[in-house]
């Protein structure tokens, strides 16, 4: 292959999926000359699996991406065809938005944003090699011999690395949705000394809308009131499309059991670990034998096509079994399958080889984001892409990297988990992974993160000012509620009685009343007649802050303790072999992860509190040696 010099950029992004798009946009928006490569221009921001974005943890990530100046929320607001707020019966910390996107519209809208972006080139090419000089990345080589130079390279290759498709006993090298795999890049990574792992994921069949009998299913419409994902989006009035719920049955399960010997998951063909939260139907049937039926959601893939996604029927059984099993489901008796389900195996980079900035420890300027780091999910990918894009720029501009802590954002939890603990299955964010869940809410991502986004340069002054103004209004209103005292008289107590709450004997502030579980801000109006009407997002924040004040305070105290440990930095050039008194297991783990802080070190499995004490004493000794000259 003849090579030629094709171009010089500041930042190269390899892959234009959900991670790649965010990385490329962030880099270009920060003023750096950027190029994004995709294996197929028609699969930019492809939603290769389900047509939905959001849900608990994931919806939080989308809001955080928005608060930091990413694109996902804005793009989703433009293209969703249904939106729902989940967990509304639970508290505010775990409420989460989830939307059905029009896949094609989502993809092309995102691609168009990239095309319109200043400083950004989008090129269809497969990258086969990473160029490194010493321990620093200098560029990439395309399959057709093009050599591109750059100061930073961000790998966002998704499931394409040595992708292998399985459908029954048929298997072949391939990417998702009939796309090409990237077979050569893995070798380049191995040559650079990276340790690789192999995971598996899968997808269900898609069927033609007109072959479905919806009358036998339960309709799942969107919310009446649409709440957008992005803080920049105004009110949305849009006709929404429903999803449909049906169930598998004993007949379905019998078909699966009888054909298990033909399932690559059970015949030993597939070796990579799959995600436990998204098992194929054959795994569900085998692992939960007592369950006579499983939920199956029928979700539209878009408005201008007839494809319907069968959530819950992910499978790599042979095609004939897929047809039989699908048609055994109520309402799908005459289903016409348009695409068949498959499993895909792919290579990923063991993520403990990355710094919390998502830069590889071994190679300067090489960043990785998304499924290449062993995660799954569009939202997880986009979040990492944004952070990798930002940090590549910070490095080039010689600015401080952006590392969000576990107490700052779900993004912080996600990345810390990856680089500190590694992955045993495709990693998905869950709210239960966030120890500071009460503070990390989807309703306050703007107030948590916009300042950081503004400092980075991805949030405009205008957006930032709006957020500050909102914050001010919230604080002012809480203060006012705390200062307005009701006197115990018959008029007041009559009103309280109407609100089904106990009367007062001593003067009580509106804030104290709002703390009562039976009182809402709305119902307080009776006793607070002269109050100004406030926007609903302000009222929501006031209610949360007052009702959960004690709990939030406790969590903030915990966060302060946590931050103390996070702020105890470990120098990057530390030599763990020099430290007397570390147990061998701890030494090996610390050498592998190379934590940036005492806090991070304490989260590594196999490192005990006594090891942390030893480490603290060593660091103190080193510090004294340095200061004493």
């Amino acid at each position, binding site marked *: 292959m003849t090579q030629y010099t094709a171009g010089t950029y500041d930042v190269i992004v390899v892959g234009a999926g959900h991670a790649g798009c965010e990385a490329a946009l962030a880099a270009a928006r920060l003023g750096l000359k950027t190029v994004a490569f995709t294996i197929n221009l028609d699969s930019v921001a492809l939603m290769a699996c389900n047509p939905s974005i959001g849900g608990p943890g994931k919806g939080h990530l989308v809001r955080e991406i928005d608060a930091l100046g990413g694109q996902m929320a804005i793009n989703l607001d433009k293209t969703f065809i249904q939106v729902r707020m989940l967990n509304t019966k639970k508290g505010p910390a775990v409420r989460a938005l989830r939307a059905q996107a029009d896949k094609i519209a989502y993809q092309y809208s995102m691609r168009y944003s990239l095309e319109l972006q200043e400083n950004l080139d989008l090129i269809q090419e497969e990258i086969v090699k990473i160029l490194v000089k010493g321990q620093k990345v200098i560029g990439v080589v395309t399959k057709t011999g093009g050599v591109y130079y750059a100061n930073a390279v961000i790998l966002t290759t998704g499931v394409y690395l040595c992708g292998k498709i399985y459908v029954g006993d048929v298997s072949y090298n391939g990417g998702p949705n009939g796309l090409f795999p990237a077979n050569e890049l893995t070798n380049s990574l191995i040559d650079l000394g990276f340790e690789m792992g192999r995971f598996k994921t899968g997808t269900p069949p898609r069927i033609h809308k007109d072959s479905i009998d919806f009358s036998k299913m339960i309709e799942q419409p969107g919310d009446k009131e649409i709440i957008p994902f992005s803080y920049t989006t105004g009110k949305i009035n849009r006709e929404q499309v429903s999803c449909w719920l049906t169930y598998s049955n004993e007949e379905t399960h019998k078909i699966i059991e009888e054909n298990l010997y033909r399932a690559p998951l059970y015949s030993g063909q597939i070796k990579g670990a799959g995600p436990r939260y998204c098992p194929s139907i054959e795994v569900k049937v085998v692992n*939960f034998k007592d369950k006579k039926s*499983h939920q199956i959601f029928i979700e539209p893939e878009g408005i201008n096509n007839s494809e319907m996604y069968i959530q819950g029927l992910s499978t790599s059984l042979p095609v004939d079994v897929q047809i039989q099993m699908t048609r055994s489901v109520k309402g799908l008796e005459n289903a016409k399958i348009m695409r068949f389900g498959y499993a895909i195996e792919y290579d990923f980079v063991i993520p403990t080889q990355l710094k919390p900035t998502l830069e590889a420890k071994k190679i300067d300027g090489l960043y990785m984001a998304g499924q290449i780091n062993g995660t799954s999910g569009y939202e997880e990918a986009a979040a990492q892409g944004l952070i990798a894009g930002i940090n590549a720029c910070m490095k080039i501009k010689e600015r401080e990297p952006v590392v969000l802590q576990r107490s700052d954002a779900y993004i912080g939890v996600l990345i810390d988990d990856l680089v500190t603990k590694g992955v045993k299955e495709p990693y998905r964010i869950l709210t239960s992974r966030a120890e500071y869940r009460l503070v990390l809410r989807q309703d306050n991502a703007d107030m948590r993160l916009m300042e950081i986004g503004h400092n980075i340069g991805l949030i405009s002054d205008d957006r930032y000012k709006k957020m500050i103004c909102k914050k001010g209004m919230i604080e002012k209103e809480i203060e006012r509620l705390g200062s307005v005292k009701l006197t115990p008289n018959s008029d007041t107590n009559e009103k309280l009685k109407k609100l089904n709450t106990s009367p007062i004997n001593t003067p009580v502030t509106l804030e104290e009343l709002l703390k009562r*579980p039976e009182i809402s801000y709305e119902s307080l109006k009776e006793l607070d007649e002269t109050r100004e009407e406030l926007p609903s997002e302000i009222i929501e924040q006031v209610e949360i802050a007052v009702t*959960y004040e004690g709990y939030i305070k406790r969590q903030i105290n915990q966060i302060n303790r946590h931050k103390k440990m996070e702020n105890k930095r470990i120098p990057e050039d530390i030599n763990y072999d020099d430290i*007397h008194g570390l147990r061998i297991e701890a030494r090996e783990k610390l050498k592998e992860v190379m934590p940036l802080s005492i806090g991070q070190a304490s989260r590594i499995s196999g490192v005990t*509190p006594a090891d942390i*004490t030893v480490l603290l004493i060593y660091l103190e000794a080193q510090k004294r040696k340095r200061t004493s000259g």
Partner: protein
Amino acid sequence: MSAVADTIAAISTPIGEGGIGIVRLSGDRSFQVAKKIFKPRSKRDIDKFENRKLYLGNIVDPETHEVIDEVLIVFFKAPHTYTREDMVEINCHGGLMAQKKILDLTLRDEVRIADPGEFTKRAFLNGRIDLSQAEAVIDVIRAKTERALVMANRQLAGGLSDRVQDIRKNLLSIIVHIEANIDFPEEDIPEADLSHIKQEIEDTRVVLDRLIQNSGAGKIMRDGISTLILGNTNVGKSSLLNALLKEERAIVTDIPGTTRDVIEEYVDIKGIPIKIIDTAGIRRTKDKVESIGIRRAMDYLDEAQMILFTVDASRNMTDDDLYLIDKVKDKFTIVVLNKVDLPLKFEQKTIEELLPGKKIVKVSALKEEGIDELKQAIYDAVEQEIGFLDEHAIIAGERQRQVMQKAKESLDLAIESMANQMPVEVVELDIRQAWEKLGEITGDTVSDNIITAIFENFCIGK
């Protein structure tokens, strides 16, 4: 400025030596906490105490006003102290039980038990200990940690671990259900029933409370080491008990079978509380009343932590003696050869051969000879066998107790949140905290377990 903000306390002298020990505090709150429990003997204002001077007074439980011990107290003002923080040393006289109680009293107002070697660690981090000693400091901490671990494990072998494990399992199943509801709202998982959860939490709290009452050194300190005086009729068991008690409690006669009931008495041996159980002498007999007593004695044989097997050296060994020798040979036993003031009918060697490896002490209970030797033997044996006489062991037990206490408080908060109709994720916060806290006892705090358990218990897969 100290690098670490919270205040720690520990018993910091080897225990047992003459019963004198020091309870030490370090940190910002040390003075405040010590002043709350110390009542000076003189009328002097405690706030005007001079730095680094010994003052005599009592430690008094501020709630019950009970005097715990007469002590000498010293206040050390930072930074000229071992840890460079404010420190207090309380020199106690009343033996182990008093030291433990004093430590308990200090563990309030956010004071916590020091980690192994933590005083030394603070001394170093605060610049008190020379750089050249860094390695030595690490060794001290390592050694103390290992020791504490061994002690904790030894105590855990007593079944605490299993019970804490059970509690954690209960809590985990509640947490997992709530988390599955939260993270997978669209799966067909039934919503966790809050009233059911409330009942579970309340039940768990009761179990935990009982465990706290009976935990570690606490139980031994409160209940004593149950010690059974076992022997045939008229070998002088009651006289032995009286000699140990120095009081005439049990009826002493030379008619076999006078002590028909079980007698429990407490004796403090160098700070260790020993609960002595004196039973009817064992003699296989047709006498019904006595055989009930004997049966009861045999019950105690299984429950007792230690046995003082008493043999009358002034008469020949009987079949009944041999029967008992067989019963005690696998137990934690001290052999008491009684009536050595009389002409001996057999040699000590005979017993040594029958009960190899057991400590043998010669006494004359009636003449109170050899009683001090017996006490020393009991003390040594307890230290060796139960090992709780060590400061590390006490602290390990106390730490476990404190952990359980904290867990219980978290459950209280969870119950309170439910009463206030807080949403489920707020309630879960404290349940999870209790679960995590208890993990410190079982040595397992990985929260990944929650996620694993979700997938094991619920079919997730939308």
